[in-house]
């Protein structure tokens, strides 16, 4: 039984969508489990959860709905059409159709601004709107549990759902082992919730200018959190020039490049079959590359993760600094 000493959180993130986070996270989880690590896999993309599909999970043992949402609506008989609500709403949720004022439930975040602004007090709320669901599969085919969440479409604050999902995962894991978190694309609230509390980040990039730009943004975010990053370049044979630019950036920023994966049509093929590539075609070029990367993480990173973290975490703290403009106009 491989041991980590204390729970360690490793987040797989990228900024750019579609570069192979879930595919790599699934492979990593399978290899770590084979190596005897205690592990919980967390799908931290509440808006487009995919990890269960890659891992072939078609049934959940637990599905707990979360009812935190709140949506405003206008009582038409009381409305004086003064437009105060439309002017107050920062989300633009108030629409006018044939002279009638209507709050679009797909846009409304449920804050109290419009009702506070409304002179005739014509605005009410629907409470306990479904925000989403937290799901658990106690044991995937590979022996470890999978926790995931799914936001109801069009709802705000998926970051909250990700936090609840991670907390469920952490309580399942207990005092020892690896929390392997597959983050969403982007750098917004979902990703920030994924990164909170993590020590290690496996950043995935593809050789495109778009991916390099997004890599820089997600990397700066990991610096805010003091996380030790490592980099994998996926589909690397599509553009060697840009691989060079990506690795130059990594070198300049002390981000170790721990592997490269070639483009491989076996990847989408295995996805269509809903079987992880390392099971479907373990000899394929991409599978071999991913296995080597996973073995590196298992044997060289996690066995003494505190040394790794110490070596590669940001040397200078770079916390988020807000830009506030005070009355009188001077930026702080």
């Amino acid at each position, binding site marked *: 039984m491989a041991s980590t000493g204390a729970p360690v959180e490793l987040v797989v993130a990228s900024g750019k969508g579609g570069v192979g986070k879930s595919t790599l996270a699934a492979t990593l989880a399978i290899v770590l489990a084979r190596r005897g690590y205690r592990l919980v896999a967390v799908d931290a993309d509440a808006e487009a959860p995919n990890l269960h599909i890659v891992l072939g999970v078609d049934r959940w043992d637990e599905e707990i709905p979360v009812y935190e949402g709140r949506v405003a609506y206008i009582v038409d008989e009381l409305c004086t059409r003064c437009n105060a609500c439309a002017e107050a709403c920062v989300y633009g949720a108030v629409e006018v159709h044939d002279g009638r004022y209507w709050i679009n439930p797909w846009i409304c975040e449920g804050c109290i601004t419009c009702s506070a602004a409304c002179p005739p007090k014509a605005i009410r709320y629907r409470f306990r709107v479904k925000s989403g669901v937290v799901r658990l599969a106690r044991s995937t085919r590979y022996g470890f549990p999978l926790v995931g969440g799914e936001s109801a479409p*069009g709802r705000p604050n998926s970051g909250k759902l990700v936090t609840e999902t991670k907390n469920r995962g952490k309580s399942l894991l207990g005092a020892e082992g690896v929390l392997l978190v597959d983050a969403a694309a982007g750098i917004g609230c979902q990703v920030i919730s994924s990164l909170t509390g993590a020590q290690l980040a496996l950043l995935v990039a593809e050789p495109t200018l778009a991916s390099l730009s997004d890599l820089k943004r997600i990397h700066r975010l990991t610096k805010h959190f003091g996380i030790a990053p490592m980099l994998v370049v996926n589909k690397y044979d599509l553009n060697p020039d840009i691989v060079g630019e990506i690795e130059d950036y990594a070198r300049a920023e002390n981000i170790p490049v721990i592997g490269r994966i070639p483009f491989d049509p076996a990847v989408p093929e295995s996805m269509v079959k809903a079987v992880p590539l390392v099971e479907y075609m373990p000899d394929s070029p991409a599978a071999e590359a991913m296995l080597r990367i996973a073995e590196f993480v298992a044997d060289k990173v996690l066995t003494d993760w505190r040394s790794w973290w110490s070596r590669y975490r940001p040397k200078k703290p770079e916390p988020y600094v807000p830009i*506030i403009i005070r009355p009188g106009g001077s930026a702080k």
Partner: protein
Amino acid sequence: MPPRWVVAVTGGKGGTGKSFVATNLAVLLAGHVRLLLADLDVEAPNDHLLLGVTRLENEEPIATFFPIIDYARCTACGACMKACDTGAIVAARGRPPLVMPRLCSGCRACLMVCPEDAISPEGRRVIGYSYSTPVGRWGDRFQLVTGMIREGEEHTPPAIVATKRRALREAPDGGLVLVDTGAGTGNGVSAAIQEAQLVIAVTEPTPLGLHDLRAILEIAHGMGKRTWVVVNRAGLGDDRGHEALAREYGVELLYRVPFDTGAARAYARGVPAVKACPGCDAARSLRGLSGELLAALKTL
């Protein structure tokens, strides 16, 4: 200057090819309609990179309201904390409140409920920037409006709405605004497609693409939007499920753009596929899609 049409390109799953489709459509349509492309993927905007634009121009800060509390007037009544929807205002019992900048959405609820007039209406916080850049190197000119949040910002809808409003303000009179929404299926996407008369959902022929297509169609359908589905990288998987799903949601057109290494290489380098390899399968298919869209504009 009100545009005549707004068409949104979205998709849910990251990496299906929203920006690929949106930027190529912009290049193709710019010769036929006056056009503005709005990149509302404020977390990770990429349209400028796919169009080989090296410098974004006309930077404007996106500044939302930020409560600056006058502690001389504050009585620590807690009304602002109760009113705050995002938990950005915290206070221990009876103590004056503290505002946590990263969580503040700028909604002004605190300002409106404060009984002591202790919050200034003038305070602002810069959460990101919007840009407006002319794109002329690929033929007929069009304008690109880009939104970008500062790294560390939790809450993206205010930045999406601000960038969208700029795009609608600067849109050519009587022309087309093409919106690239960015990944996701949350209220950021619904805000990005709010004004659209047509929503084009870009997906990929895998079970992951299918799963996220359902969520996007749920939103578009719920908002009463006419929808098309574009299966990008067609041929690299199985899209029968996508076809069935499209029928289920009353999607008006399902269009396939084949996987094409020429197009992928062009994308990587920042050259629109329709210019880099006009004869390749993906480019021909994109031209066909732009023709369908032009014809559809007459009915929108």
